[in-house]
């Protein structure tokens, strides 16, 4: 009797404690790593999903046997909006698409040029999609091609791209990680516009989609390429090279980079490695046209010297610092000019003005920001410090008294 008395409540517990509704069995899920969104001619969305094949990512699980299987596969579906397309994809997927591990969201240039807003809501509303998902734009190619490209090191393209983003942000600084929250916030910021990384395909593009891609000598690769400038949700153009880096200087997001500084007449001069950098922004809102002061404080090392100078002489270091300051200042000014040319406040100036003087922003600048932004005066001051010069003192060129100048000039 006592056993029975225990047994009944326990079996009743079984009824309710099994969690039948939201169970997610691993073998019933297709883990989506990347999502691509394109636009077809009718204006419907074409959505591409890159799904990993778990047996090949963790081969130990299933044993090494069996034939060669693709590491990931790609599904494509259409719909009037994102959610419709997602559910529509179930007609061809054998498992439920699971978004919690999605790492990148790629828009096509076509969609970006038309309107990026409509694709962003679902991604930030769906509880399954993590807000760490990176947003990119496929440049001169389609999201579908990017997601189909086989890569060599990280086998899944989406993993590779997010890793590249991380590495290049830390070493070169022309791209900056932009997750979906940051994109949304930059749209909402006072007068703000988003700036989204571009990604392109290089190499033999026909080879990209075959698994032979990473076995051959000159494979197709995914490569980050500039940052897209938006205006009212539409892609207006691209910032490339130093222009893109200028944005990171302005926002104080440079972690490390290399800047080439001329010496005398030698354009190849020095390679200055930035170790860390700090940016201070302040705005003066006295007149009709605001002025923004940018102060950049980079800390640097000399990483390469191609001219014959005495690096043991402190005054020489001061000279290089000055030259370096000049280069950075020009770089930042060029970026500001470019942004003002697009009339798109990707630099966060509106937010800065609002922070500095909320009343004036609300009453004066906000309504006619279209006219104010291109007029904003920007003053850049760079105050750099060169700390070290690697493990060598003066370059060997200096000891041998070789003047490297003519050679390089003539080349």
């Amino acid at each position, binding site marked *: 009797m006592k056993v029975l008395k225990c047994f009944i409540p326990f079996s009743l517990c079984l009824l*309710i404690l099994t969690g039948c*509704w*939201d169970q997610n069995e691993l073998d019933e899920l297709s883990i989506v790593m990347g999502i691509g969104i394109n636009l077809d001619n009718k204006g419907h969305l074409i959505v591409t999903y890159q799904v990993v094949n778990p047996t090949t990512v963790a081969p130990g699980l299933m044993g090494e046997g069996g034939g060669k299987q693709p590491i990931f596969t790609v599904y494509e579906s259409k719909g009037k909006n994102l959610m419709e397309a997602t559910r529509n994809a179930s007609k061809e997927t054998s498992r439920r698409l699971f978004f919690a591990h999605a790492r990148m969201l790629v828009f096509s240039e076509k969609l970006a040029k038309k309107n990026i807003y409509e694709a962003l809501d679902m991604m930030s509303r769906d*509880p399954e999609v993590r807000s*760490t998902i990176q947003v990119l734009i496929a440049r001169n190619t389609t999201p579908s091609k990017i997601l189909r490209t086989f890569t060599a090191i990280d086998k899944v393209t989406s993993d590779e791209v997010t890793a590249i983003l991380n590495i290049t942000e830390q070493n070169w600084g022309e791209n900056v990680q932009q997750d979906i*929250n940051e994109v949304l*916030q930059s749209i909402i910021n006072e007068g703000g516009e988003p700036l989204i990384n571009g990604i392109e395909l290089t190499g033999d593009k026909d080879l990209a989609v075959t698994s032979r891609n990473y076995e051959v000598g000159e494979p197709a690769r995914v490569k980050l390429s500039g940052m897209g400038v938006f205006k009212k949700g539409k892609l207006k153009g691209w910032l490339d090279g130093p222009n893109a880096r200028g944005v990171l200087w302005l926002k104080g997001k440079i972690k490390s980079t290399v800047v080439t500084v001329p010496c005398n007449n030698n354009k190849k001069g020095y390679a200055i490695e930035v170790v860390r950098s700090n940016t201070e922004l302040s705005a003066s809102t006295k007149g009709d046209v605001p002025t923004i002061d940018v102060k950049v404080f980079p800390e640097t090392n000399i990483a390469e010297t191609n001219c014959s100078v005495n690096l043991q002489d402190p005054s020489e270091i001061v000279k290089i610092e000055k030259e370096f300051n000049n280069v950075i200042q020009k770089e930042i000014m060029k970026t500001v000019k470019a942004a003002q040319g697009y009339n798109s406040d990707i630099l966060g100036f509106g937010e800065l003005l609002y*922070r500095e003087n*909320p009343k004036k922003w609300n009453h004066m600048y906000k309504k006619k920001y279209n006219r104010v932004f291109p007029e904003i005066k920007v003053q850049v001051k760079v105050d750099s410090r060169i700390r070290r010069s690697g493990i060598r003192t003066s370059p060997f060129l200096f000891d041998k008294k070789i003047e490297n100048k003519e050679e390089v000039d003539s080349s």
Partner: protein
Amino acid sequence: MKSYKIDLQQYFILIILFELGSAILVGLGMDAGRDAWIAILFGMVAGMILFSGYYFLYKQFPDLSLTQYVQVLFGKHIGKIFGFCYMLYFLYLAARVLRDFGSLLLSAVFVQTPIIVVNTLMIATIVYVLKLGFEVLVRTGEIFFVLVALLGVILTVLVLSADLMDFNYLLPIFGEGVMPVLKAAFPVTPTFPFGEMVVFTMLLPYLKVKNRNKALKIGLLGMGVSGFVLSTTIAMDIAVLGGHVATHVYFPLLAAVAKINIGEFIQRLDAIVVFTLIIGGFFKVAVFLYVSVKAAQDVFGVKEETSIIGPIGVVVILSSIAIASNYVEHINEGLNIVPDFIHIPFQAVLPALFIIVFLLRKKKLKHFASSSSS
């Protein structure tokens, strides 16, 4: 009444868990945008004033709970009507918090699960704990408190070390002037969660006799600490997510913590937040439920409180489903209707009335109080 008494430490923990409960997860004072954290501090100060009022009443009737002393103040019949209203108020709040908890859990984690299942499981646990007595709830609280505090510290350290915060998101302070912040603060933040301290008018008599003098001090300290924690949490949410995202998600803390990614290794910590949500929700609903059981006991003269915990639990489950037809309606009621028409009367107007009546009838009542306690 069982004579279980709580000491100051338990009282303090009870306040912290109750105040933080669900409030730490939902965006408080978010109408104030990036000044939300200031709105919370305003609310805290106003809540402290309310609490001093409750303490004044408690001081006059140290052995009686609110539903008991209204019967002394107004006589048995009118007093019972007031008591009945308070019972309904506590019941409604229990249902509200349960609905908050269920809806948020559903929209964040269990998308397909019916809400009644989640709510029923919660109430079943609470009823079980309360049947074992108030003592068990308080001691459960002590264990939970250590857990919550530990998780809170860990999460804060992780957010700090993940370098996610951009303090520029918090500037300018008072960008739109002080008025919008005050508007966002009043009447919502003083009433939720600080004014909800009104439940302690029912619980203060449980304090050990020797600790009674410190009831106000520790109460205000508890509110201060929880106000500070709430305010810094919201400020952290905004600094991590930015003003827009933080004010436009139901779960700012969940969204902020989800962004932690240290070395591709320590990441996806949202589960910890859901864990705290469950603890906080459990504790808050349990306190409201227990208080309404006590109120019902006083009003209807029930001898054994354990006999009505189960039925009242069922009432709370059903009303948590019935009070709103969808989540938007529920939140809208909570922000626009409940503070003005329910919280303020029960948290401020009626207690003020009780104080006035007490002061008017002081002499008569003193006689009663001394005779009843002897």
